[in-house]
């Protein structure tokens, strides 16, 4: 039986989709069978980040409604053959997703894959609550910035009350993934540091992804960064995070800024 993860945040634009794709590809590279599921009905983007946008025929709603079989809607990644995508619908009404329908699909996916990673839409509405509804564990993506941290706190509250696991009285395991971290700005006190965010949200840290041009480059190319930019700092951070998810004990490396001698003396232009 596979494990169901929800990647969620409350706030939009913090890196949920990028992280879903990167962690999915990282787990597949480690030899696991992985499916990434896009729950953002009407605004799907995981297909684009995965580079599979022209291969979408059927989607999650088709499967929920019984129009297509699950195997017809699953898209196998061209680079990693244990990585699959279940896309969201671009056009259909999000009310077409029912709790019962999603529950059936999740049970089916759980029996076929080691990891089912659900990419939640932003917000706290129906799409987001459905994406987390049947999860075993949650990854909360946060940027070190006030509005993102506040929204993450709300999402943690929802994970503890609106999920099936919470309703059964069980505790949902949560992992904090801090994305878009700029070590320089944190060191200068211009950005919340890791310790601040951890103390405020008080959930265990899964990884810290440094802000990097490589992330944009990867989404431009339509490949998860853990496939196309394997040597980059964010890819290393995602690989480490994926290993931690599998239970490996990996030392947490907080990104630091490499500061040159002249920069130290004369300062640097604000980014």
């Amino acid at each position, binding site marked *: 039986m596979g494990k169901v993860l929800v990647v969620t945040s409350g706030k939009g634009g913090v890196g949920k989709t990028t992280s879903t794709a990167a962690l999915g590809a990282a787990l597949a590279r480690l030899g696991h069978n992985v499916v990434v599921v896009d729950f953002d009905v009407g605004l799907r983007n995981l297909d684009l980040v995965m580079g599979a946008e022209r291969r979408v025929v059927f989607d999650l709603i088709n499967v929920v409604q019984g129009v297509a079989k699950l195997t017809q809607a699953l898209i196998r990644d061209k680079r990693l053959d244990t990585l699959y995508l279940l896309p969201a619908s671009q056009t259909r009404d999000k009310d077409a997703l029912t709790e019962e329908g999603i529950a059936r699909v999740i049970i089916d996916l759980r029996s076929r894959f080691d990891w089912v990673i659900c990419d939640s839409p932003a917000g706290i509405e129906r799409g987001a609550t459905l994406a987390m509804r049947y999860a075993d564990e949650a990854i909360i993506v946060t940027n070190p910035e006030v509005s993102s941290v*506040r929204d993450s706190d*709300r999402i943690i509250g929802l994970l503890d009350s609106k999920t099936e696991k919470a309703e059964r009285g069980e505790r949902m395991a949560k992992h904090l993934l801090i994305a878009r971290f700029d070590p320089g700005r944190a060191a200068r*006190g*211009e950005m*919340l540091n890791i310790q601040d965010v951890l103390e405020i949200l008080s959930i265990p840290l899964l990884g810290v992804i440094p802000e990097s041009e490589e992330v944009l480059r990867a989404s431009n190319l339509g490949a998860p960064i853990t496939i196309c930019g394997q040597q980059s700092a964010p890819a290393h951070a995602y690989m480490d995070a994926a290993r931690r998810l599998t239970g490996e004990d990996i030392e947490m490396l907080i990104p630091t800024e490499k500061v040159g001698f002249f920069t130290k*003396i004369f300062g640097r232009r604000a980014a």
Partner: protein
Amino acid sequence: MRLFRFLKPISSAPVARERLQILLEYERRMVSQSSLITTLKDEILAVVSRHVSIDPERIHVSVDRGEGFSTLAVGVQIPNKVAAEGGMIQTGAAGQGPATPN
């Protein structure tokens, strides 16, 4: 001069941290309190409705948090003619509809 930058208070992160801590402490309390109040209100309404026909809008429940103890205040408005009948009504009594559970 950059060399004297340490003289100026430029770090905004501690401000962000403090604002978040204060805000989240308040919001967490509000969220848990509002769900408690909704539950209390629904159950009080159900109990009172068994004996008196009341408007669900006329029930006010609030919690005042004080140091050491908190106060739960419940206010239920009952129309006068019902009160004059001793607060008890029979189902189908004149002018009274059936109790409306929320």
